[in-house]
């Protein structure tokens, strides 16, 4: 068992934590860490932590990896011994299964997981759980509940709230385009499920065109040009991703069409364009799949290794980006192909998010898993 490998160590002083927190800021985490009380870390021994991810190439994944590594550096500064390894499946679910099996065989303490398939990993994840590996899954979730915890935003709510904004913006009537991610991807399907329910419940909304486009601006530019050539009189463009929204906005501009309302995501290229166009009356709404879910997952996993009670599901709130605050989100110092988040929760806030999820679960206010 993992706990058997734990060694005795006294809690680290708060001053050391503060110093480490400042170091974390230096590693790129834009937080208010220095101003907040930093909680002590659990008393656990040397940890072997593996991050199994379906791929690492997209910028969102790079940001996520940066978040994990910054948090690990912070924890090392507090005295924890952590060995960290990234397992990149390169888009292949079979590879990911084999890599998780390797973690089991090599007696990893913690398996952090972004799944490449909702169902294919269920068995190996269950095996890891049975073998005593703490498995915490976020972003792309597995179906099984045979693991320590899941952490995520509500993707259906993502679609619902952006869809509702579009309906409200159009006064309940209009012709719209709906731009989704690749067909069959769980995140894409869930967002569309939420939005479609809103559109179908609004008789005045007509979806005149849909497309499934990978989360990549260049192909989105091509397909949006076709859709807008066929439907130049659309009243709005519902996009579930930032690269799509950026492509939609550019295509409207290039084709000389009115800048109709668009929904999007915290993709920096889009945020910067949107911010610049607010004075001209362009209106949009976006949310974010926050990268700091990785930090929540890691901290939760360490608490679980220490034997502390942890929730089985943490629902991370979706932020709202609108015309009033978009320029606070757009960040000129970050690359365009990046997901801007102006403020990342500090350790105390992360602990609070976990504690609140546990309290809600114990009181029966939220389901044990989602």
């Amino acid at each position: 068992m993992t706990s058997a490998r734990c060694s005795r160590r006294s809690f680290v002083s708060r001053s050391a934590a503060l110093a480490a927190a400042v170091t974390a800021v230096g590693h790129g985490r834009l937080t208010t860490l220095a101003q907040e009380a930093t909680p002590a870390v659990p008393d656990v021994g040397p940890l072997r932590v593996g991050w199994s991810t379906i791929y690492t190439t997209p910028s969102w994944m790079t940001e996520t990896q940066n978040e994990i590594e910054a948090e690990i550096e912070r924890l090392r500064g507090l005295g924890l011994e952590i060995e960290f390894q990234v397992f990149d499946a390169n888009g292949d679910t079979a590879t990911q299964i084999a890599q998780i099996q390797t973690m089991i065989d090599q007696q990893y303490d913690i398996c952090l997981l972004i799944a490449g398939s909702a169902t294919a990993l269920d068995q190996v994840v269950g095996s890891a759980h049975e073998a005593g590996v703490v498995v915490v899954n976020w972003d792309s979730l597995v179906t099984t509940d045979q693991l320590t915890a899941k952490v995520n935003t509500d993707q259906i709510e993502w679609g619902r709230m952006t869809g509702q904004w579009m309906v409200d913006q159009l006064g309940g009537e209009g012709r719209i385009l709906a731009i989704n991610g690749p067909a069959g991807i769980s995140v894409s399907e869930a967002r569309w499920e939420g939005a479609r329910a809103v559109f179908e419940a609004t008789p005045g909304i007509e979806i005149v065109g849909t497309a499934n486009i990978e989360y990549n601006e260049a192909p989105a530019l091509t397909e949006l040009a076709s859709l807008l050539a066929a439907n130049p009189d659309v009243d709005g463009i519902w996009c579930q991703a930032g690269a799509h929204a950026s492509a939609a906005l550019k295509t409207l501009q290039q084709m000389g069409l009115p800048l109709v309302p668009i929904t999007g995501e915290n993709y920096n290229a889009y945020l910067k364009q949107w911010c610049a166009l607010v004075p001209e009356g362009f209106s949009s709404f976006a949310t974010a799949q926050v990268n700091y879910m990785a930090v929540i997952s890691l901290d939760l996993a360490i608490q679980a290794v220490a034997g502390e009670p942890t929730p089985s599901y943490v629902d991370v709130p979706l932020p709202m980006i609108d015309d009033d605050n978009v320029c606070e989100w757009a960040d000129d110092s970050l690359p365009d192909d990046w997901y801007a988040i102006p403020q990342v929760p500090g350790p105390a806030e992360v602990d609070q998010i976990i504690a609140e999820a546990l309290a809600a679960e114990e009181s029966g206010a939220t389901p044990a898993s989602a």
Partner: protein
Amino acid sequence: MATPILPPAIPSPAPAPADSDASTPRRRFRVDPVWLTFVVLLALWVYSLLRVEGFRTVDYNLFTLRVAAFLGIVAAGQTMVVLMGGIDLSVAAVVTMAGVVGGNLISTVGEAPAIILTLLIAAVVGAVNGLGVVALRLPPLVMTLASLNVIQGVLLVYNAGKPVSGESAFLGYWALGFLLRVPTPVWVLALVSVVCVLLLQRTAYGRAVYAIGNNPRAAFLSGVPVGTVQVATYALSGLLAGLAGLLILGRTGYSSKTAGDPFLLLSIAAVVVGGTSILGGRGKFVGTIGGALLLTVLVNVLTVENIPEAGRMIVQGVLILALLIAYASTEE
């Protein structure tokens, strides 16, 4: 220079069976696959015009040409490699690399040096692919797949994984501008095409490419510098993928670590849909241009059809398959 490898002997084809009835030789209707490509392209284009009113504008059709040009430039290099009997899976990563490295260099060393350096790096990556195939005797599929992974890995650590963008009016013009009312990328593709056609049809290098594609052992025994031609051809493929990457940087206005992803299979599809044999030695460059246009028009048509994504994917796959079967049936 690495010692050229003597390709394995290829058994001589068995003599053709005597015609059972010499007095009435079998006549076989044969169509040049390139013609077939353009006939299907024309049919699809006419269908798109009839189907969608918005497609009947000059602007939209110029836009289609612009999009096809990006694919055509990548596929041009792929064509040379495939004609030679190889394959280049690394083009997707090279397109991405050119955008990321080019964007970063533009912001540090300036526009012109950045563009030259980026193209040079792309060509070197291609040459390394060629060296791997020639000197290490690695199958092209394995070598270029490995390159793809290595480049993706390097981009993850390059500048801490942050794809810095650089403003480039020059690239913006050559990606989004017009010259004599024709989209600028089309001019770039035209120039690339002229060079490739001249290379293939008017030079010893071109004859060597076809010869290696047909029978590398025979080419070697005939005195063709097989290794040199292979390295040069992979370098050309890398160079053209790098050029496309820079133009895509100009098109989107920023560097992205996934910019090249769509070109991995599309560039190969454009080549084979254009009638070039995936086994090498047979095909015409102009077919690839038709293939790139056909795939672009097909995506445009399927995008506006109100059918589920699964249906679109099936239609796209079946059409490509039907074309390949039609090509095969025209071969001896």
